[in-house]
C-alpha cells in the first residue's frame, strides 16, 4: 500500500517538476513586462468586427493566418560567452516586442546545443508551434541547412543570423551577419603591423568544420599565411576552448622559445587566455589576437594586458535580424543581406564597447 502511494507521489512530483518549470517561466514573463496583458489582449483575439482590420495587418505580419504572430528563436548554443550575450540581446528585444504588441509571443531561446541535428529538430518544433518567423543561428553551414529549408518550405519567414547556411541566399527571408574572412584578415594584418620583423606564429582553431573556424582561418591564410617572413607552426584544433589554447601556447613556447611571436585564435576566449599565459611567462612581446569582443578580453584591452581583439557585433547582428522581422510585419521591404561589420578594438576605441 505504502509503495503504491509513494509511486503515485513520485509520478506526480515528476509531472509537477515539468509543469512547474514551465509555469515558472510563464509567470516570469508577464511579470517582467507588466503592461503586456492589455496589449496582447488587444492584438491576439481578432473577433469578427475587427477581422477586416486584422487582415490588413496580416499582409506582412501573420504569415500562417492563425491570428497570432509568433517568433521562434533557435540559438546556436547557450553556453559560450559570445552566444550568451547575443541570446541576451535577443531576449531583451523580443520581450519588448511582445510588450508593445508588435508580436504575440515568442518561443523563448531554444537551445541548439551546437548540434545541427538538434537544430533540425527544433525547426520542426517551430513549424508545429506554429511560428510565423524564426531566427536561427546555424551551428553548421551545411548540416544546419535542412533546418532553414524545412522552415522556409513550411512558409515561415526565416532570418539567418551570425553565419550563413548553404541555401540561405535562396531560402531565407534575410541574413544578418558579418564576414568571417574579413575578421581573419583583420587579425593577420594586425599581427604583421605590430611585429614587422615576422617570425613564427601558431593558430588555435575552433571546432573543426564550423564555418566561423573555416572562414577565419581562410582570412588569416590570405594575409599573414601568405607572408614569407612568417611561418605557421601549426593549426591546432582547440574546439573554441580557452584551456586548450593555453596548453597549445605552452607546447609551442617550449618548442620555439623566442622565435614564437604571435598566437592567432579563432575566438578571443582563446586569445585572451593565451595572452595571459604568455604574460605570466614573461613573454608580453607575443601578440595574441582573436575574434568576438567578449567582455573579458575587452577588459584586458582596457587594462593594456591584451593588445587588441576583433569585435564581432553579435548584438548588432541579432538586432538587425529582428529589425528585418519588424519591417516584414509592417509590410516594408526587407533587405536580403545585412552585413554588420567587424571592428578591430584597441586601447584607442575600447571604451565605446565596454559595458
Amino acid at each position, binding site marked *: 500500500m505504502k509503495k503504491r502511494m509513494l509511486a503515485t507521489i513520485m509520478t506526480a512530483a515528476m509531472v509537477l517538476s515539468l509543469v512547474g*518549470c514551465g509555469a515558472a517561466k510563464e509567470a516570469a514573463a508577464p511579470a517582467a513586462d507588466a503592461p503586456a496583458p492589455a496589449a496582447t489582449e488587444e492584438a491576439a483575439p481578432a473577433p469578427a468586427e475587427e477581422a477586416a482590420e486584422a487582415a490588413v495587418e496580416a499582409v506582412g505580419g501573420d504569415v500562417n493566418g492563425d491570428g497570432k504572430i509568433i517568433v521562434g528563436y533557435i540559438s546556436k548554443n547557450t553556453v559560450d560567452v559570445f552566444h550568451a550575450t547575443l541570446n541576451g540581446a535577443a531576449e531583451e528585444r523580443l520581450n519588448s516586442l511582445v510588450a508593445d504588441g508588435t508580436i504575440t509571443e515568442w518561443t523563448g531561446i531554444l537551445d541548439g546545443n551546437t548540434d545541427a*541535428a538538434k537544430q533540425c529538430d527544433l525547426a520542426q518544433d517551430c*513549424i508545429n*508551434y*506554429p511560428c510565423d518567423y524564426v531566427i536561427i543561428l546555424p551551428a553548421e553551414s551545411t*548540416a544546419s541547412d535542412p533546418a532553414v529549408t524545412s522552415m522556409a518550405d513550411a512558409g515561415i519567414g526565416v532570418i539567418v543570423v551570425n553565419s550563413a547556411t548553404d541555401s540561405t541566399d535562396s531560402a531565407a527571408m534575410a541574413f544578418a551577419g558579418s564576414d568571417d574572412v574579413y575578421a581573419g584578415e583583420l587579425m593577420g594584418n594586425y599581427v604583421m603591423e605590430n611585429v614587422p620583423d615576422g617570425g613564427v606564429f601558431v593558430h588555435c582553431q575552433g571546432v*573543426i568544420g564550423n564555418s566561423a573556424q573555416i572562414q577565419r582561418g581562410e582570412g588569416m591564410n590570405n594575409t599573414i599565411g601568405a607572408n614569407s617572413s612568417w611561418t605557421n607552426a601549426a593549426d591546432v584544433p582547440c574546439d573554441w576552448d580557452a584551456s586548450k589554447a593555453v596548453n597549445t601556447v605552452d607546447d609551442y613556447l617550449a618548442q620555439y622559445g623566442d622565435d614564437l611571436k604571435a598566437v592567432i585564435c579563432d575566438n578571443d576566449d582563446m586569445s585572451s587566455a593565451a595572452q595571459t599565459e604568455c604574460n605570466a611567462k614573461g613573454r608580453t612581446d607575443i601578440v595574441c589576437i582573436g575574434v568576438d569582443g567578449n567582455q573579458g578580453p575587452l577588459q584586458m584591452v582596457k587594462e593594456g594586458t591584451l593588445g587588441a581583439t576583433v569585435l564581432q557585433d553579435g548584438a548588432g547582428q541579432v538586432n538587425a535580424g529582428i529589425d528585418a522581422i519588424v519591417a516584414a510585419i509592417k509590410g516594408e521591404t526587407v533587405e536580403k543581406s545585412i552585413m554588420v561589420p567587424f571592428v578591430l578594438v584597441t586601447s584607442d576605441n575600447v571604451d565605446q564597447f565596454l559595458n
Partner: protein
Amino acid sequence: MEAKKKFYQTDAFRMFMGKYGIGVVLVFMIVAIAIMKPRFIYPSNILNVLTQISVNCLIAYGMCLCITTGGIDLAVGSQLALVSVLLGQFIVLREMSLFPAIILSLAAATLFGFINGVLVAKFDMAAFVVTIATQLIIRSIAQIISDGKGMSLATPEFKAIYSGTLVGIPYPIIYMILISIVMYILMHWTKFGRYVFAVGGNVNAAIASGVNVFWTKTLCYTISGLLAGIAGVIFTSKTGSAQSNVGLAYETDAVAACVLGGTSFAGGISTAPGVLLGAIIIGCIYNGMNFLNIGSYYQYMTKGVIIIFAVLLDMVINKKNR
C-alpha cells in the same frame, strides 16, 4: 486481505507494471503537456517527435544490449561521425551509388563494434574504458578521412532517406518500427536474447549453464555498432552533410533512454519496448519543454530531475523483486 484481489493486486498487473511502469509516466507527461499546450498532441507534432527520436532510439537499442550484459558502449557517437564521413567519401568523392555506399559504411561501423566486443569479452577489459578509448580512435579516424572538413551530401535520393514518407509516415519512423520489431524478437524470442540476460544477470551461472559468454558479449557490441551505423545514415541524411564533428555526447541520451526504459545498470534486466518508451520520453521532454517555453538553462535540470524520479519510481515499483 484474503478477499478478492483488486486488479492492481494481481500478479499479472504487477509484472506488467514492473516491466512497463514507465509507460504510466509517459502518459502522465503527455496529458500534462497537452493540457497546457493542446498543439503538443496534434498528429503533426506526434509524427515530428517520433521522427526526432529515431536516431536516439536506434542507438539506445544497441546501448541497451551492452548495458544488459553489464557493460556500456560509449563509442556510438563517434560511430555516427565515422558513418557520416564515410558516406561523404563514398558518395561524393568516389561517386558510388547509394546502396553499396551505405552497406560499406555500415560494415565499417559494425567492424568497430566487433572490435569493441572482442576487447571487452576476450580480454575482460572494462567496457567503460574500452569504449571511451575506441570513441577517441574512431573519431580521430573520421577526422583523418574527412580532413576535418564537412561536405554537402544533399542529393535528393539521399535526402529521401530521412525526409521521405510512406502513406504520410516519415521514413525514420518506419525504420524505427522495423528495428523495434527486430530488437523485440532478438531480445525476447531468441536464444541469443536469453543468453544476453543470463550473462548480465549472473555471468558465472551462465558459464556453468554452457553459455558462450565471449560470443554473446561480442555480438552485443557488434549489433550496437551496426545500429549506431544505421542511426548515422539517418543522421547524415537529416543534416545533408557529411562531417566528423557530429554525434558528440549522443551516448548520454541513449543511456538515459535505456535507464528510463528500465534497463538495470547492474545488468540482466531490460526490455525492448522499455527502451522505445524511454526514447519517446526523452523526445517528449525535449519537444514538450520547448512547447512550454522552458528556458534552456532549466531544460537540463528538468531532464535530470525526470530521469532521477523515473528511476526511483521504477525501483519503488519493483522493490518486491529484490
